[in-house]
Structures are given as structure tokens and as C-alpha cells.
């Protein structure tokens, strides 16, 4: 394993791979720093550029975006009080007060170094755990895969914010979109209504780009006339120069905090479609609970910044484990990576690491190297990032939309992908406006065909449906899925009751 990793590190250090990784990390940091541009949107912008690259170059660039984006959000979070990405929300709580109190350099660099350490520990987990997990997954039959995918969907739908019913409907819509076109077993046209446009089904990437990019941009455009949360006068003044040894010492002197919040980040990353936004909030909450001085949180304590930033970068490592070991995307960013892999003819799943060892270890190496690159980019250009982060939406939106159109067109070099992009742009925006979570839809869309294939394979092998429950792993996974659904129903009911008791009856 170490030899493979060493070779992969040497490969990635060649200019051919280092340049895309560097540019991806830079793009990620910039995208992460711009409020309203999420990491998902940044990776969607990058996607068309990867079509002309070899698979490892493209995946290295995407890994760079993921790492850079997870750290980039801390710049605006600390210096403007506006989180650049949802995964930096908790950084704002202590980063901004610390920066306003005259220590902007300490606030930013505590975040950068915590991101780096958290991410690297996440990398260790990624390298050590992916292979054994994939080996376990290789023992799975169609029953276990079916149950695993159902578990993933149940968790995502249950953990979605707001109504669980909406989460389930969203997942169902995703499964439904995946059904259009030819059925995966017999190739019989399904729900095509005699249309050529529908006969090939809806290509995954244009659907994903349409849903995420349009919902994001249109929501930003809607809110354009709203007063900004922070005005230029609120910006923190002062130098970002700091003693790095001192800052690193501040982090390392809290090994339990760093390790625990990193574990929280990794665990959230491994669970499908929860993402960095939950990781940083949960880690912040944990840090506060374990702290001997919880009253200092929210007033500029270093613990708050370390917890949030180590967790959101460790979350990336966890997400990569899920996609590389099981072929299940941990979030929308890894969903785009999965789409890019499909375009290059690479099948993700438990065989990925053993059949594409060079590529898998290349991703590990890119992930590890992206962290020092991120630190370097921040060291050289953190202040410039702050300026770039204030780019006008009127400039950003057209450029992003043009790149989305190119991305959708380049999937098959036909206009069909672009039409799908527009259709699902409208659908995605409508779903966001009506408060339907998008994550279950995307997971349903990705897993739909695999769920159907494994269900049919299982029934064709043995038509005894009880096997889904009586086979221990399959039954265990379905039980966890059931518990997850029951727990979230219970939580929703409890939350509704509490709200009903707290709210005054006018």
C-alpha cells in the first residue's frame, strides 16, 4: 500500500498532474471564498474543462476543488462575517469576532492550519479504510447492495431539513428520473411516449448541473435586492501576518479537540449526502460541549475555529471513502466526480480500488497534496481572494451559466443535454422554492438504476423475497434503514410538539 501511495505521490508531483491539481485547488479556494458560490457550483464550473483531460488529471483537479473549497469559505467567514460556503458557517461564530478584535491573521491562519491538519488526518483515514471497506463490499450479493442503497436513500431522506415526506418525495423523483429511457435489463423503452428526446433517458450530468447551478444562481439573483449582511465598512482591517509556529502550536496543544472534531467530520462525510455544512456545525457543538469554557464560544475562541475547520476538511476524506469503496456519492460534489468518472468509462464501486489502483492511489495522493497547495495559495493570496470574493453577480452568473451549457453539451456533443439542463434547471429552482431538499433527489437519480438492477438480479437468482431480510448483512442494513426512518419521524414529531408548546397561541 505504501509503495503504491509513494508512486502515486511521485506521479501527482509531475507537472502534468500537479498543474491541474493546483488550478483546481485555486479554483476551489476562490469558489469557496465567494459567498453564494458553493463547492458544488465550483466543481460544476470545472467539469467541462476536465472532459479534454485524462481521468487522473480531471479527478486531481476536482479533488483540488473539493479541498480548496472546503477551506476557502473561512476567508470571508473570518474577515467579512459571511461564510463563503455552508461548510464555514460555524467558523464565522468565532473567526469573525477574533478578527474584529484585532487578530485577523490569527483567525484566518488558525482556520487554514486546522483545515490542513483535519484534512490530512482525514486523508490517513481515506488511505487506510477505503481498501478494507471495498473488500467487505466485494462480499456483497445483489440483496446486500439493494439494501445498502435503500439505507443510503433512507438516511438522506430522513436527515433532510424540514419535512421528511418532502425528503422521501424528492428521493422518489430522483428514482423516477432514472427510469426514463430503456430499462436496464431488457432494453425495453419505458415512459418515452414515442419521443426520440426521451428514448435515451435523462443524462445524469446535465440533470445534476441544471438542478444545482440554476437553483443556486436564481436564488442569488432573487436575493440581489436584499440588503447585504455585511457592508464594506464592516470589513476587518489589519494585517494577516502571523507567527505560523505559534498558530500551529495553538492547534497542536489541543490534540483531543483536533482529533475528536476531525473524527466527527470524517463520520459525517462517510454518511451519504449530509455534507460539510452539518460537519462543521456538529463539530462546533461537540467542541463547545467538551470545552471547560463553553461561555467563550461565539466570542472569538480558537477552539471554535479549529473545530469547524478541521471537521469540514476531514469531511472531504470521509466522502471520498464512501464513493471509492461503495460507489455511493457522499454529497453533490462527489456526485459530479462520479459523473466525470462515468464519462471517462470508469466504473466506481468496490472493484474500483483493485481494478484501477493507479487511479485510486492517484486520488489519495491528489487529496494529500492538495492540502499543502491550499496552504500555499492562502499564504500568497488570501487578501486577493477577499477582493475576488466581492465580484458582482452580474459578471459571475453569465460566465457560470455559459460553462454549465458547455458542460451539458459536451457530455454527448448534442443539444439534447442542453435541453435537459434547462428543463431540470426549472425543476431544481421550483423544488428549492417549494422547500424540497435536493440531496435525496440526486442520490435517487444516481442509485436508481443500481437499485433496480440489484433488485432484479436478486429475484432472478432466487425469487424468495424473504432473503432480503434473512440474509444477515442485507437484513441488518434494512433494519438500520428502518431505524433511521423511525428515528427521524420521531425527531420531526418531537420538534413539531416543542414548537407547538413554545409558540404563543395568538
Amino acid at each position, binding site marked *: 500500500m505504501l509503495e503504491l501511495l509513494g508512486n502515486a505521490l511521485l506521479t501527482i508531483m509531475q507537472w502534468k498532474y500537479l498543474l491541474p491539481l493546483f488550478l483546481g485547488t485555486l479554483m476551489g479556494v476562490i469558489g469557496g471564498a465567494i459567498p453564494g458560490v458553493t463547492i458544488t457550483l465550483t466543481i460544476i464550473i470545472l467539469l*467541462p474543462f476536465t472532459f479534454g*483531460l485524462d481521468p487522473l488529471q480531471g479527478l486531481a483537479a476536482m479533488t483540488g476543488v473539493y479541498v480548496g473549497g472546503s477551506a476557502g469559505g473561512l476567508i470571508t467567514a473570518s474577515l467579512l462575517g459571511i461564510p463563503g460556503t455552508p461548510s464555514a458557517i460555524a467558523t464565522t461564530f468565532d473567526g469573525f469576532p477574533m478578527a474584529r478584535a484585532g487578530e485577523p491573521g490569527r483567525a484566518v491562519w488558525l482556520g487554514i492550519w486546522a483545515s490542513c491538519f483535519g484534512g490530512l488526518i482525514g486523508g490517513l483515514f481515506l488511505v487506510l479504510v477505503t481498501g478494507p471497506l471495498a473488500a467487505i463490499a466485494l462480499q456483497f450479493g445483489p440483496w446486500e447492495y439493494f439494501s445498502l442503497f435503500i439505507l443510503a436513500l433512507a438516511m438522506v431522506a430522513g436527515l433532510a431539513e424540514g*419535512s421528511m415526506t418532502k425528503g422521501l418525495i424528492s428521493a422518489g423523483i430522483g428514482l423516477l428520473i432514472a427510469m426514463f429511457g430503456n430499462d436496464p435489463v431488457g432494453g425495453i423503452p419505458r415512459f418515452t411516449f414515442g419521443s426520440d428526446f426521451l428514448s435515451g433517458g435523462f443524462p445524469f450530468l446535465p440533470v445534476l448541473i441544471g438542478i444545482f447551478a440554476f437553483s443556486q444562481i436564481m436564488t442569488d439573483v432573487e436575493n440581489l*435586492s436584499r440588503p447585504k449582511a455585511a457592508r464594506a465598512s464592516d470589513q476587518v482591517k489589519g494585517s494577516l501576518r502571523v507567527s505560523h509556529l505559534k498558530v500551529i502550536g495553538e492547534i497542536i496543544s489541543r490534540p483531543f479537540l483536533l482529533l475528536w472534531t476531525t473524527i466527527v467530520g470524517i463520520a459525517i462525510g462517510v454518511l451519504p449526502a449530509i455534507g460539510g455544512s452539518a460537519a462543521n456545525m456538529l463539530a462546533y457543538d461537540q467542541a463547545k460541549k467538551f470545552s471547560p469554557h463553553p461561555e467563550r464560544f461565539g466570542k472569538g475562541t480558537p477552539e471554535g475555529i479549529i473545530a469547524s475547520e478541521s471537521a469540514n476538511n476531514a469531511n472531504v476524506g470521509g466522502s471520498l471513502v464512501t464513493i471509492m469503496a461503495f460507489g455511493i456519492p457522499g454529497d453533490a460534489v462527489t456526485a459530479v466526480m462520479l459523473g466525470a468518472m462515468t464519462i471517462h468509462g470508469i466504473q466506481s464501486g468496490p472493484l474500483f480500488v483493485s481494478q484501477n489502483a493507479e487511479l485510486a492511489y492517484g486520488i489519495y495522493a491528489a487529496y494529500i497534496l492538495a492540502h499543502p497547495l491550499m496552504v500555499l495559495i492562502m499564504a500568497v493570496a488570501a487578501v486577493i481572494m477577499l477582493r475576488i470574493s466581492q465580484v458582482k453577480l452580474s459578471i459571475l452568473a*453569465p460566465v457560470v451559466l*455559459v460553462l454549465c*451549457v458547455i458542460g451539458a453539451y459536451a457530455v454527448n456533443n448534442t443539444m439534447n443535454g442542453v435541453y435537459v439542463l*434547462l428543463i431540470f434547471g*426549472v425543476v431544481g*429552482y421550483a423544488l428549492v422554492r417549494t422547500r424540497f431538499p435536493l440531496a435525496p433527489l440526486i442520490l435517487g437519480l444516481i442509485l436508481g438504476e443500481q437499485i433496480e438492477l440489484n433488485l432484479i438480479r436478486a429475484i432472478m437468482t432466487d425469487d424468495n423475497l424473504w432473503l432480503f431480510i434473512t440474509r444477515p448483512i442485507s437484513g441488518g442494513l434494512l433494519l438500520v434503514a428502518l431505524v433511521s426512518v423511525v428515528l427521524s419521524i420521531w425527531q420531526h414529531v418531537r420538534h413539531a410538539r416543542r414548537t407547538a408548546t413554545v409558540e404563543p397561541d395568538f
Partner: protein
Amino acid sequence: MRVGRDGVIGLIVTALSLGLLVQSLSLPQLPLTPIGPGFYPRIVLGLLALAGVVLFIQDVMANRAESSTDGEVQSPPGFWRVPLLFGIVAAYIFLLPILGYRLATILFVLALMPAIEWPTTIRAWATVIAISVATSLVSHLAFERYLLVLLPRGSLTGW
């Protein structure tokens, strides 16, 4: 009985699911497999229809007149721009195969930038024009020349 937005959505989801469920009944049965192409869609569509009914019932039960928190949200101040922007994107997509990538993209950015923020000075208009031309030409050069991604040619213009 007061039906809110979620209730209407629940009914639409149920109606669409049942419509497709009926459609799935006409799918042929494969001779060599115990289950046909309609088996799995029927399960999903059945559950989706059920979830739509649950959403409808939840909405009615919630008595939306009293709980406004999850209900009718006021449109944000810039909501009027959204249909305009979707219209511009649709026009761009319509024009792409007719005018070709370069020309259609210049027109698209020229239309979209003022739609988001109206330029008030000559300098601002010059910026809009410069960004429109630059976006089109730089992206065309990068994708066609260096990344080998062929972009749409115009049936009318030939380039």
C-alpha cells in the same frame, strides 16, 4: 378544508405517479425474466403516490392559516428577475444551434448582465460588451483549441 401549496404539490405528485403507474401496466413482460420492466417502476410510483397523499394530508392537518412558518413564503425582492433570466437562457439555448456558440454567447451575456444589474454609465456598458465578447471568445478558444471540446456550429452562420 384549506389546501396550501404543499397540499397542491402532494396532489400533483400523486396524480403524476398514478398516471405513470397506469402507463407502466402496458409495458411488455420479458419471456426470460420473472419480472418485467414495469415491476420496479410500479413499486416506486406506488410509494411516490402514497407520499404525495401523505404530504396532502399533512398540509391539510397543519391548518396552514395558523402555521405560517413552513407555508406561504413571501417572494424575495428580486423574484421578478427569475422568469426573465430563465427566458434569456431559453432564448440562448434556442439560438445556439442557429447562430453558433460564439455569436449566441455574446448575445446571451449581453442580455443577461443588464437583466441582473442595469448598467447606468457608458463605462458600465463598455464593461458589459467587453465581458460578453471575452466570455465567448476565451471559452471558445480554451475548449475548442486546448480541451478538444467541439462547441455548437450555427446552421445559419456556419461558425
